């Protein structure tokens, strides 16, 4: 339990309007979530579909503001790892890399310094200078991932995008991301795959119906989560 607290959520709730028309019918995607994230922690978020995991990530990223509860964030950058952010079809791979990097919070000189690395990692060769509308979807994903992996925020937020592209690139991108997570960065990872979270995270937050059920050591939370899953399953 050491390390400075970077992000702290207390009883945080976020409401959405159900539809875009006159009349107010709100639903709470997050009802009541507590979370403490310290520097260097790798926090996995588990929970069933629709539990509010992705909404929670967007709150930590500063995209959504809580409608109730308290949130404290230190003077740190929290960035959601987004692929192909702001890509423009008519621009070259190089220009899109710069644009996407800026959107992801990099300074221009930082991206320019990394263009060679992006070019190499994406395996695009001469296509790097071509408009991305000529790319196959696999090439697009390779470029998108190569840019995103360059981003180094204080807190890296990852929502289920651990590997993209063909089998070979999937291995490469997965390995790069695991390496990034292993470098002592602070990470919050949302995933359906327990195996992934077990392999990559040391702490786990369990979210259910927009409420945080339990946050703590990985093995303890997994044990409680499994007990609950078994209880919920119909008796044989």
């Amino acid at each position, binding site marked *: 339990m050491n390390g400075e607290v970077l992000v702290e959520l207390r009883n945080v709730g976020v409401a*959405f*309007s159900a*539809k*875009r028309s006159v009349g107010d019918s709100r639903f709470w995607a997050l009802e009541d979530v507590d979370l403490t994230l310290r520097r260097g922690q790798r926090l996995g978020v588990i929970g069933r579909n629709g539990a509010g995991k992705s909404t929670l990530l*967007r709150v930590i*990223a*500063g*995209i*959504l*503001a809580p409608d109730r509860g308290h949130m404290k964030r230190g003077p740190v950058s929290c960035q*959601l790892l*987004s692929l192909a*952010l*702001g890509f*423009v*079809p*008519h*621009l070259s791979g190089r*220009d899109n890399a*710069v*644009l996407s990097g*800026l*959107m*992801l*919070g*990099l*300074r*221009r000189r930082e991206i320019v310094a990394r263009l060679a690395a992006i070019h190499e990692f994406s395996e695009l060769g001469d296509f790097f200078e071509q*408009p991305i509308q000529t790319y196959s979807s696999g090439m697009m994903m390779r470029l998108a991932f190569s840019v995103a992996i360059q981003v180094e925020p204080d807190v890296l937020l990852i929502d289920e995008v651990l590997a993209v592209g063909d089998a070979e690139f999937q291995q490469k991108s997965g390995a790069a991301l695991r390496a990034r997570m292993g470098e002592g960065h602070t990470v919050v990872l949302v995933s359906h795959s327990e195996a992934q979270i077990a392999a990559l995270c040391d702490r786990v937050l369990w979210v259910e119906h927009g409420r945080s059920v339990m946050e703590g050591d990985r093995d303890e939370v997994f044990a409680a989560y499994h007990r609950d899953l078994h209880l919920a399953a119909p008796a044989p």
Partner: protein
Amino acid sequence: MRQHLIELVFFSTYAELRAERARSYLGLAWWILDPAMQMAVWWLLIDVILGAGGPGYLPSLLIGVTLWQWMKSCMTHGGYAIWSNLNLVRQVALPPLVFPIVAMLSDTVKFFYILVVLVVILWFSGYPPSAAYLGLLPLFVAMLLFSAGVGFVIAALVPLLPDLRFVIEQVLNVVMYVSGVVFMLSNVKSPLRELLSLNPIAVMMDAARGILMRGEFPNWIGLGKASLIAFAICAFGVWFIARLAPRYPKLAA
């Protein structure tokens, strides 16, 4: 953080202009062809068919259409910018003001290309440059502030009320008619002329024609008033967007 946003705005503007050039077959030529076609329509209607143009109509129309196209594109492109970038708003924590600013900056860059053509045409038509050209700078600042303000207000509302788009085009057409874009205020009879000259856009159009055609400095009091109104709208627009900003990322796709 702030410097990073400035870099983002400038590079996005460059990207926008580049993409627009690549999108169409004639590319840059449309920046000139588009206002030229609009002008031809008005000239045919008002000067040729109705015979209501009067002396100097063609150059005054040229100035009116060029300036209005710039102002209108800032209002509409800027006005739709947050709405059309909602997918980005949902994914990344950026101040939404970035999107209309990028749209307006790229329209302003385009405008300066067109302005050069406009001025050259005027010189060759017997309206030489004069010291009054210095007045263009404050005039353009006032026009940009005014358009940006209106654009910001539209930009704040359209994501929440996308149906507004259907109304805005029509409203802007009416605004064009009452702002002396396609006719000169001096050709309008009293008391309608006094009424129309309360409109800041009409005042600015008049000032532009005075500078470019008659070598007259703008009426500083009139321009000052128009600038104040422009500044007030702009400040309100910025506040309005900041006020509504938390709602945009929650809007459904």
